C-alpha cells in the first residue's frame, strides 16, 4: 500500500491536499487516495472562474474500480486548472503531489486551513 505524505501541505479527511502560497491554494488528491482508487482513467474538467466553498464537489475522478468525488479543501475562486491531467490522468497516480495537481484557487477564507490536518496528523489518520 502506498501512502506517501508530503510535509508542508494541509490535508482533508477525504484525502485532498492543499499547498498554500500567500493567498493561493494549489489542490490535489493524496498518494493514499490515488492508491486506493487505482489507475485513474478520467477527470472531469474544472472550469476556471468557478467559485467554490470549502467542502464543495470540485470535480469527479474515475478509476478502473470506482468513481470518486473530489471536494475542495478551501473556499475561493479557481484561477487555473491543470489541463494536462485531463489528457493524462495517469499523472495523478504517478505524481499526486506534483504533476497531478488539480487546480489553483485564490482563497477567500485563508483561515480555513486551521480546520485541516498537517502532514503528521494526516499520516496518522491514514496509517
Amino acid at each position: 500500500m502506498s501512502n506517501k505524505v508530503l510535509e508542508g501541505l494541509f490535508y482533508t479527511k477525504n484525502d485532498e491536499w492543499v499547498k498554500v502560497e500567500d493567498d493561493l491554494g494549489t489542490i490535489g488528491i493524496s498518494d493514499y487516495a490515488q492508491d486506493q482508487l487505482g489507475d485513474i482513467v478520467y477527470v472531469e474538467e474544472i472550469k476556471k472562474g468557478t467559485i467554490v466553498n470549502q467542502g464543495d464537489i470540485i470535480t469527479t475522478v474515475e478509476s478502473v474500480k470506482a468513481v470518486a468525488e473530489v471536494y475542495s479543501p478551501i473556499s475561493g475562486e479557481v484561477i487555473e486548472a491543470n489541463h494536462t491531467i485531463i489528457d493524462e490522468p495517469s499523472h495523478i497516480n504517478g505524481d499526486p503531489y506534483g504533476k497531478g495537481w488539480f487546480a489553483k484557487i485564490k482563497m477567500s477564507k485563508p483561515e480555513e486551513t486551521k480546520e485541516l490536518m498537517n502532514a503528521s496528523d494526516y499520516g496518522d489518520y491514514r496509517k
Partner: protein
Amino acid sequence: MKLIFEKSFPGRIGFSKPTDLFDDIKLEESIPIKYLEKNKKQLTEVSEVDVIRHFTKLSKFNYGVDDGLYPLGSCTMKYNPRINEKMAGLANFSYAHPLSFPDMAQGSLELIYRLDKLLCEITGMDKYTMAPASGAHGELTGVLIMRKYFLDHGEKRHKMLIPDSAHGTNPASAAMAEFEVVEIKSNENGTVDLESLSHAMDGETVGLMLTNPNTVGLYDEGIESIQKIIHDKGGLLYYDGANLNASLGIIRPGDAGFDVVHLNLHKTFSTPHGGGGPGSGVVGVKSRLIPYLPTPVVALEESSGKYYFKDVGEKSIGMIRSFWGNFSVLVKTFAWILSLGPEGLYECSKASIINANYVLAKLKEYYKPAYDRYCGHECTLTGREYKKYGIKTLDIAKRLMDYGFHPPTIYFPHFEPYADETIMIEPPESEGKEVLDDFINTMIAISKEAKENPELLTSAPRRTPITRTDDAMAVRRPILTYDDELRLKDELNYQEKDINF
C-alpha cells in the same frame, strides 16, 4: 487468434446476391449523395465456413450460466430454464406481428394482461407497464411518472434522495428526469441512516429511490420509518427491483409502502441476461399513479371478453418505447411464474437467501464481511486483510478465473469506511450445495495462496485465453472497431504475447 478482418481474402464471399436485380441500380441515384459514406468501409471477405468456424471458436471462450457458477453480486445470474424458451418459441408467440389486429393476437394480449395481474399479486402493486426494455429504462420510466405526478398536482419538487449504496443507474435516471440528486449516507448496519434521511426530506423533494434488500445484500429494517418519513412530507417511494430475488413470497414492496416499483425480469424472473438478453424492466405503480403510466396498456373489455390496447389518457408520460415491450421476455417470465407457482416462488427466495448465508458463514473467517449480520440473497465480503501481502481484491477475482469460476462483483458498492475492497457474492437458488462447496473451497485455497505465494494472484489469470488485461489503457484508449485497431496499433505498441488463443 486472428480477427475476422485478418482472415479476409480478396474476392472470397459467403453468399451470392441475385445480380440481375441489382445490375442496373446506381447507388447515387437511389440514395442522396450527402448520405453516402465517402470512404469505403473496410469489410472482411470470407466464406460461410470461415464465419462459422471463427464464431464457434470464439463461443468456446465464453463463460455463461450454462457453464457454471456465475456469482456476480447484484446481478442475479440464475439458470434460465429451457421451458421458458420453449414457450417463447411457440409459433403463435414468435410469429405474432406487433402491428397485428388485436383480434388476431388475443393470446398475446391475454398473456400481457394476465402477467400484469400476476406481477401485481407478487409485488403488491396495482398496475404494470410492460414497455421498458431494461432495468435502467424502467427506472427512467418510474421517475418520469413521479415527475409527472407532481407537475400534475402543481408541486415544484426538484430533488431526489438516493442512498450511497445505490446502483449508479439510480442517480443517473434521476438526473435524466432533471432532478437534483441528494446522497444519503449509510449507517454502520449498511442501511439508510434515518436521521440523515429526515434531515434531507422536505417539501421540495420528490422522494427516495431504494433497493431492498439493498445493494450490499442487506434488508433495510428501517423501511417502516423510511416510508413514513417520505410520505409524511408528501413524497413518493421508489423501489429498485434489482434484489427482488430475496423477497418473493416473503415481503411485497407494495405492502412496505413503495409507490413505484421496477422489476428486472432478466434477473429475478429467470430470463436471459447480459449479451443474451434482451432485458425487461417492467414498472408497477399504486392506483393513484396509474393515470401517468406510459401508453397504451392492455385492457379487457368485459362485455365481449376481448383484450385491446387502451390509451392511458392525457396524463400519461407518453410512449417510452416502440410497440409493446420485449414481448418474448414477458412470455418467459409468465412461463416461469406458472411453472413455480406461489410455493415455488417462495422456495426460490428462501433458497437464494440460504445459499448466500451459507457462503457468508463459510467464508467470513477468510474474507472479513463488510457488515457482521445475516444477509439477504447476496453477501458482501472484503479483501482488506490481504492488502498487507500486496494483494488487491482484483487479484483475488482474477485468480478465481484460473480455477474456472466467473468472479463475483468487486469494488461495488464502494464507500468508506464500511464497504471498502468489496467482494459481492450472489449464489442464486439454482446452485446446489456441491457447487457452493467447490467455490468456497477455492476461495479458501486462494486465501492461503495470497499469504504464501502472492505472485500466483498478481499474475492471474494464466489459464484463460486472455491473461491480465490493462484495464486503464482499455478505458483511456479503447479499441472498439477494426478501424481503431488499425489506427492505434503502432501508437499503443500492441502486444499479442498475452493472447494465447
